[in-house]
């Protein structure tokens, strides 16, 4: 049913249609309304056959999901920001044990300094933990990806993170077509675990493994993700056939066929980029955008195929790998191994800094003139940076950086954007 709804609520409805059996969550900041919505559905009886477990921390949330998934229950949780750091050990364990948990990340920055706003630092911190990571462009896709995520997770016995931009998507109201229960049931078969804790047929899950076998277990995680490269497009295609709309897949190219400049990005910023691409196309610029939906596994071949004819590639990233620059660009460069073109990394939107069409247009035009540096920072306030650096040069005890900068900027909330 088509409705105007909040992103978090649309996701909650989609998850409920997947018939989860255990949902566990730590329901305070940095949490989203998703689990609140699911909790209400369990309580009012609209989501049956599901136990909602309020736990005492994010570490407990994922640990409980590991337990319930190992017991054969379809298990779901959601987190963000410091929450995913607090559950880090369990994040690796869920993947190492091969448990098909689905978890939403309402993408937010990581402190310090404390910041509740959107960027991709949280999910990027867990990019090598063995989970599949899918990034949603809008709330329709955010809802749809959850349905695909359970299918993919259970087929491979591998956990999946669905990454949804915090606030920008989770708190945005827009139209979302919520599928029917019959449609979801047709797409997503009941969970048949490949391993299950069962009193009648006992196994132990999580044995200690020495040098003789650890390597192989780890390799098999990599193998699963390589299989996911085939399954993700396949399940996206099946989804399209059944639900009548596109969602997911490895990558999506927009106006890339004859593009000299191709922008690569994850998540909701692709919408703003597409508007800028249309605007620039209208006055003759040959520019396109490649949306990465799957970041883990990283679709090297699909990215290479999409970018190989371009003259230059601009990777726009909402996370900063301090000390090197881009995270996504490393993958893109690997995909383009041996191909000669100009590659630019742009860090943007950290801690909720607005990414505006105006700034993107100026950035892309600069890229077209090949005047961009290899690594640049969109709308970074260099005056503020320089003042803080100067303070450090003037005196040894220059004080805490974040507080100094806030004092320089004056009262917050007086500015738009």
């Amino acid at each position: 049913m088509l409705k105007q709804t909040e992103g978090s609520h649309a996701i909650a409805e989609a998850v409920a249609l997947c018939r989860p059996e255990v949902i566990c969550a730590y329901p305070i900041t940095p949490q989203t309304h998703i689990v609140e919505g699911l909790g209400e559905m369990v309580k009012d009886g609209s989501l049956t056959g599901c136990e909602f477990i309020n736990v005492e921390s994010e570490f407990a949330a994922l640990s409980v999901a590991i337990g319930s998934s190992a017991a054969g229950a379809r298990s779901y949780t959601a987190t963000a920001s410091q929450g995913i750091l607090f559950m880090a050990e369990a994040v690796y364990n869920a993947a190492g044990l091969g448990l098909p948990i689905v978890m939403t990340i309402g993408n937010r920055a990581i402190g310090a300094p404390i910041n509740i706003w959107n960027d991709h630092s949280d999910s990027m911190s867990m990019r090598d933990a063995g989970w599949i990571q899918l990034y949603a462009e809008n709330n329709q896709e955010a809802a749809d990806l959850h349905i695909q995520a359970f299918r993919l997770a259970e087929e491979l016995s591998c956990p999946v993170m669905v990454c949804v931009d915090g606030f920008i998507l989770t708190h945005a109201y827009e139209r979302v077509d919520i599928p029917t229960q019959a449609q979801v049931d047709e797409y997503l078969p009941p969970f048949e675990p490949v391993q299950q804790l069962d009193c009648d047929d006992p196994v132990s899950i999580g044995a200690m493994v020495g040098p003789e076998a650890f390597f192989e277990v780890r390799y098999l995680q990599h193998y699963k993700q390589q299989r996911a490269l085939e399954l993700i497009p396949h399940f996206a295609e099946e989804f399209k056939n059944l639900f009548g709309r596109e969602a997911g897949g490895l990558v999506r190219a927009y106006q890339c066929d004859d593009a000299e400049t191709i922008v690569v990005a994850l998540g909701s910023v692709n919408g703003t980029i597409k508007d800028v691409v249309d605007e620039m196309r209208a006055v003759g610029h040959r520019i396109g955008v490649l949306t990465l939906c799957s970041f883990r596994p990283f679709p090297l071949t699909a990215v290479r195929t999409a970018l190989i004819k371009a003259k230059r590639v601009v990777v726009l990233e909402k996370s900063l790998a301090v000390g090197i620059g881009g995270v996504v660009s490393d993958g893109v460069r690997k995909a383009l191994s041996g191909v000669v073109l100009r590659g630019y990394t742009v860090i943007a939107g950290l801690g909720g800094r607005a990414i505006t069409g105006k700034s993107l247009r100026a950035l892309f035009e600069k890229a077209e003139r090949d005047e961009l540096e290899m690594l640049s920072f969109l709308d970074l306030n260099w005056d503020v940076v320089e003042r803080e650096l100067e303070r450090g040069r003037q005196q040894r005890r220059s004080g805490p950086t974040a507080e100094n900068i806030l004092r320089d900027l004056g009262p917050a909330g007086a500015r738009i954007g």
Partner: protein
Amino acid sequence: MFQVRIHGRGGQGVVSAAEMLSVAAFDEGRFAQAFPSFGSERMGAPVMAFCRIDTREIRSREPVMQPDALIIQDPTLLHQVDLFSGLAAGGFILINSRRSAEELGIAELAHGIGHDHLCTVPASDLALKHTGRSMPNAALLGGFAAITGQLHLDSVTKAIREKFPGKVGESNVAAAEAAYEHVMKERQSPATHA
């Protein structure tokens, strides 16, 4: 595309107002996107929310920098926040106040947008009268329908009833209808201060 920016303070229902606007536009068969400015959610702190309305899919995620309409829920923000930043030529300004634009010292804003594009409406008073609480958001949406003509009053009242079922919804609808009448009347009166 028609873009709206709503300014108020934490606790005044700014985010709900944007949400209800988007629902009203959706009910009229249009595409709409509403989102908050993602500030920290404290009572009394300046808060912004945005709504975009269009006849096709809305893809942009940037904050509304060039609004076609501004709804100002709290006139004390006039001295604190750069409220009119980016207002489009011919845009609309609706302010919750029992004082006139001239009394608020902003009558000159009408020069750029036309006197019938700048209105004040005592939304908090109307809300208090009809709902028993001074939450001005629903009343201002009635005023928005009147000043911009972007939405039918019926769609706005339907969205209010959807958000607040039962008695709370009905009393807020009454406040919205009263604000609609007030703004319609004010727009028809000759420009006394122009």
